[in-house]
């Protein structure tokens, strides 16, 4: 059973006929107004057909291909991870290299002086002076003993001789 709207649309499109057409037109309260409305609708339909027919794409395949291509590129850009120099493999290699350098440096440093080895440094005299007024002829020599004690000697000559009393504790 068709509704009124369905029958109205079919009547406007000229698709009703025979008994169905007669019954529908008889059910209309104002047939003249309905006929006027039908004419207007048909005019509008004809106008739209003319206008839409003028906009038909002549290269629709190319246009469609362009759109597909653009969509594919956008999807690829979205899916691709953001690139950075610090990728996981590079991080791993950098860490391993730094660790290896540290180990090599430590081994080299530790092998330079075996544990417990005594320093080879000798005592150094940086400068020396005696009072020139009291000891005008004083001279100073510096040398190291040749034996295992590695004694550094600051040797003075010409200092004023003092009486034996000065040896008191």
């Amino acid at each position, binding site marked *: 059973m068709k509704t009124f709207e369905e029958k109205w649309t079919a009547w406007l499109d000229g698709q009703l006929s025979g008994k169905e057409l007669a019954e529908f037109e008889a059910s209309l309260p104002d047939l003249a107004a309905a006929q006027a409305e039908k004419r207007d609708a048909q005019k509008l339909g004809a106008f739209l057909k003319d206008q839409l027919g003028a906009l038909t794409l002549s290269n629709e395949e190319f246009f469609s291909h362009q759109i597909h291509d653009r969509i594919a590129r956008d999807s690829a850009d979205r899916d691709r991870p953001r690139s950075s120099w610090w990728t996981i493999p590079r991080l791993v290699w950098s860490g391993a290299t730094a660790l290896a350098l540290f180990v090599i440096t*430590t081994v080299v*440093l*530790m092998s*330079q*002086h075996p*544990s*417990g080895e*005594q*320093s*080879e*440094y*000798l*005592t*150094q*005299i*940086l*400068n*020396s*002076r*005696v*009072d020139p007024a*009291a*000891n005008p002829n004083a001279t100073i020599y510096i040398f*190291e*003993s040749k*034996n295992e*004690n*590695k*004694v*550094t*000697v*600051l*040797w*003075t000559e010409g*200092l*004023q*001789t*003092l*009486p*034996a*009393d*000065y*040896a*008191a*504790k």
Partner: protein
Amino acid sequence: MFLVLAISAASADAAHAVWSGLVIAENVPQPTPIPPELTKLEQTLKELFGYNQFELIGQSVKTLKTGEEDWLANSKYFGLHVDARGENDAGYTLNLKLYKEKDVLLETDANLSKSSPLVIKGPQVGSGQLLLVLVVKDDEGAHRRRRVEPANPITAGWHRLRRAIHRILP
């Protein structure tokens, strides 16, 4: 870890004492035994100065914690003022002043090595000779600790690293 290393390094650095002595060297018919502080140097002192007796007339032992302490070794007439001005790779930088009463007889700056004693020939005193001796010794307590606890390789490595960096960037 660096805190532990720093503490270890500081305790190792603090484990030294400087012994300073005023010695009268003399030739006498009946020499007295050399003081125990000089036993290790006895032969060297005899060879260097030709005396048969070495008598201590003043001494001082100073344990260095910061490397910037100062102290005095005194006899009745002489005074040896030692002013430590910091520790370095070789040992300690010292300023030494030998006083005769209030007069400065001799002044010197030296890097005293932990493995190399310093002997200074002072003035002739009567028939003898005044000598000043400075030796860096291991602090007794630290020495005992070291015997119980073997050297920590990490601390030793840290010291070597520090020395290497000091060598590169003095």
